């Protein structure tokens, strides 16, 4: 039962957070929107004429935009595939009775705590480097030519790195969900003669469905913004082979100083992320009522 006084107090306590977040979200977003309609280059002084949809036109018809959208989808989709299927498998394997479960779990989860620039550099130099990398040495040892990962398959290499970082996250979430499954239900089904596949399909998977959805949505939000891994390894190349939308906006605004075009790209990224966000918010919102 909240009195009137405590309601006023509550409003006062919440307002700094609301005001700050509002300012943080709205001010830059409105500015981005505004810039996206101007011809605005940081290197050119003077007028910034209003050009309506010109920036969008150029951004959307630029071949590197199409490449960036495709790369973004491949990157997000590829990492999701690896992490969701891998995560389910890992969670199932880690949930069984074993010795030293705590230590093994920590080893599986550790990559999530490695900062993106470090994991990108480790993979780039120690593993994927065709001369000194471990993969290259193994290939040569077996009599094959070493693979130049970032030259021949740049996007796939980035996917491997990012998946290594996010597989622990999916595993941890799914393992947590799996452990909340009622053991008696499983035992009962086993007594009734259900074999492992049907127990997995009819009991475990439905129980995990929510956690899987959450993993997909949250990872999508983060994966749309993958930046450091690309910046440190391929710089979006060769050509535009590993340029994602996030990276393309970075290139046009901070490397080419074309604020107008970069802003148009930023707005497009916001729209794409919102489509995912709507689904995620609905899921979490439902949970809030429960």
């Amino acid at each position, binding site marked *: 039962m909240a009195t009137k006084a405590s309601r006023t107090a509550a409003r006062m306590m919440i307002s700094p957070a609301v005001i700050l977040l509002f300012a943080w979200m709205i001010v830059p977003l409105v500015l981005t929107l505004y810039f996206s309609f101007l011809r605005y280059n940081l290197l050119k002084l003077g007028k910034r004429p209003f050009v309506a949809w010109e920036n969008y036109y150029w951004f959307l018809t630029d071949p590197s935009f199409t490449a960036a959208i495709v790369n973004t989808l491949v990157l997000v989709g590829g990492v999701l595939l690896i992490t969701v299927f891998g995560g389910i498998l890992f969670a199932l394997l880690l949930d069984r009775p074993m010795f030293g479960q705590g230590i093994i779990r920590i080893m599986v989860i550790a990559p*999530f705590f490695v900062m993106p620039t470090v994991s990108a550099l480790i993979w780039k130099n120690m593993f994927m480097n065709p001369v000194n990398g471990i993969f290259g040495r193994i290939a040569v040892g077996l009599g094959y030519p070493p693979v130049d990962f970032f030259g021949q398959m740049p996007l796939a290499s980035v996917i491997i790195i990012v998946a290594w970082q996010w597989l622990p996250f999916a595993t941890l979430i799914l393992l947590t969900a799996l452990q909340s499954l009622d053991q008696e239900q499983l035992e009962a089904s086993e007594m009734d003669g259900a074999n492992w596949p049907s127990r997995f399909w009819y009991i475990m998977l439905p129980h995990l469905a929510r956690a899987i959805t959450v993993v997909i949505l949250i990872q999508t939000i983060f994966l749309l913004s993958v930046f450091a891994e690309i910046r440190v390894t391929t710089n979006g190349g060769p050509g535009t082979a590993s340029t994602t939308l996030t990276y393309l906006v970075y290139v046009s605004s901070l490397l080419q100083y074309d604020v107008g075009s970069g802003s148009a790209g930023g707005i497009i*990224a916001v729209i794409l992320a919102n489509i995912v966000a709507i689904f995620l918010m609905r899921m*979490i919102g439902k949970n809030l009522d429960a």
Partner: protein
Amino acid sequence: MARAVSTRTKAVNTAIAGTLGFVMFFPILWIIILSFKTEEDAIRAPLEVLFGSGWTTENFSKVQARSDYFKHFSNSVIISLGSTLLGLLIAIPAAWSMAFVPSKRTKGVLMWMLSTKMMPPVGVLVPIYLIFRDLGLLDSRIGLTIVMMLINLPIIIWMLFTYFREIPREILEAARMDGASLKAEILYVLTPMAVPGIASTILLNIILAWNEAFWTLNLTASKAAPLTAFIASYSSPEGLFHAKLSAASIMAIAPILILGWFSQKALVRGLTFGAVK
């Protein structure tokens, strides 16, 4: 009740899971090993690295001498701690009021706060960069601390909210009946019960701020550069020095690896916004 499992089954399970763990952990293990090798040994074949070479600790001091690890380390500490504490200062009252004095709008406000987290950083990169340039906040610790606080604020509020919501309200009402003021209620009743939740929140946010690599790379140059940028500087020619790169990497991730071990539960709750507990 867990069923009795034969030692043999357990051993097989351990072997399978242990292999997974080893494979996932191997890149980290490998740079730990390389960081104790000389440059010449570090680029030899893996088996020679393991069995045919000596050990040294010179890389760590060389990394410090070459790129001033401690400056970047202290930037990372200041930015991640500062942003977390600043965030708590703003988030605790907000989460408290939403958990204990909910109104019709509470759910809407929470969802809206969450939505700010969904905004891709590139959408606001340009204006933030320009505003920071005009205010002289580029490459400053204060600027980065504020940005880190703002991008993590929704997570802090949500985490605290889910923890606060689990505190039985009757206890607070009892305190109120006994004549405790709002201030006393928060200080002596709520806080002790909320400390574990607050601690987990702090832990997770330090980790997130420590590892954040979009704003830290784009808004800093040298003065305020934290460890993410320190490592990125090893990406070009210097990257060929595997032993030093390994030592630098270990120095950058070790504090968080250790914190991370304690924060697995907080991580699940914080990053799924309470949807999985």
